[in-house]
């Protein structure tokens, strides 16, 4: 595999291969929590943290599994690690910010089934990233996820004030919006590669 610089990996993960808008990972929270800006941003940060922990653990686990030639257990062990990391974030948030904890509601435990988190772990394994590369990749992925969430939430907050045709309201409108955002992000294609 051609050596990629850390900067390239980061830029590609944030913009050109944005997890949400270009690779379709983590769409459930993207559509679910993006109605308000003040929940969207913390959700992005929480997910980024889980990604970081999951990526670190996945790197170690992968070494261990390869050593014992147990690659077929990769998926199961990754998912268990992610579930524990989410549990940790949940306990931390409940203690420090109960308001935020309630605002995020069901979407907090659902980070476990956020494909973006498992996606980071799987992609870094598939691309055979080194330790620092994995770290940068997960940070970039998290930043990209947060960026997409914040952008979407800002647009949707504006939309609440405008007069939208009744038929289009709801999921259809969100999807069309996401389509337009995604089209804008296509402009970054080729950056960082």
């Amino acid at each position, binding site marked *: 595999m051609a050596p990629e610089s850390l900067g390239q990996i980061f830029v590609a993960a944030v913009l050109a291969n944005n997890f949400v808008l270009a690779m379709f990972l983590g769409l*459930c929270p993207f559509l679910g929590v993006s109605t308000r800006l003040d929940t969207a941003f913390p959700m992005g940060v929480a997910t980024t943290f889980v990604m970081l922990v999951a990526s670190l653990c996945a790197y170690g686990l992968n070494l261990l599994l390869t050593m014992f030639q147990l690659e077929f257990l990769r998926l199961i062990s990754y998912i268990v690690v992610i*579930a524990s990391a989410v549990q940790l974030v949940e306990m931390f948030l409940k203690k420090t910010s109960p308001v935020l904890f309630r605002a995020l509601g069901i979407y907090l435990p659902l980070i476990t089934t956020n*494909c973006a988190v498992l996606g980071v772990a*799987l992609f870094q394994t598939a691309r055979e990233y080194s330790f620092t590369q994995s770290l940068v990749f997960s940070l970039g992925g998290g930043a990209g996820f947060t960026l997409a969430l914040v952008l979407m939430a800002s647009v949707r907050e504006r939309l609440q004030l405008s007069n939208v045709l009744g038929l289009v309201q709801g999921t*259809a409108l969100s*999807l*069309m919006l996401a389509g337009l955002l995604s089209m804008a*992000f*296509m402009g970054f294609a080729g950056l960082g590669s």
Partner: protein
Amino acid sequence: MSDLAQARTFDEFMEGIWRQNPVFVMVLGMCPTLAVTVSAINALSMGLATGFVLVCSCGLVSLVRNIVPKEVRIATYIVIIATFVTVVDYVIQAVSLAVYDALGAFIQLIVVNCIILGRAEAHASKHPPLKAMVNALGMSIGFVIGLLALGVVREILGAGTLFGFSLFGANFQPWVVMVLPPGGFIVLGAWLLLFAALKRRKEARLAAPGDGHGA
């Protein structure tokens, strides 16, 4: 089996296909839905793989539903699902390397498809195995239909082909954006819009006096 019980089983089966279609009504499992539907064949294989995992894990979850303590049930479900996904992953790799390369990491990402965990938690953990599997089968078919609806439209518009066969001849200028990420969002949005319009028309017709039996 009495008529009533038979009707119930059928209802259970149809629920996932129409009234609670996972793609169009519940809008669940969006990530694989949008990512792999660039062509009809990808959509079909993804739907079948997900369906297999869904039916098998719902059956197993339903079998162990009385043994597993409530506190660790989600973890148990995830491990069951991950096991079947690993099986599917290796089977696809053995059967068709081309499909495996096209779907990429999204086969392994079936683990985190909300439809499967949602069905396991909401239905399979409360019903006997046969019923759970019938419901899961209906859901799978509904999911395949949803994926195909997207895959067919995107492939025809974006590449001018259907299942790899050229439709319009050499002069067709493909609408490339449809097979790129934005196309996925827009086509799904358009389908939802169509269903919303149909639903509204039906409601209007039902509300109109003297004309109660519209299609």
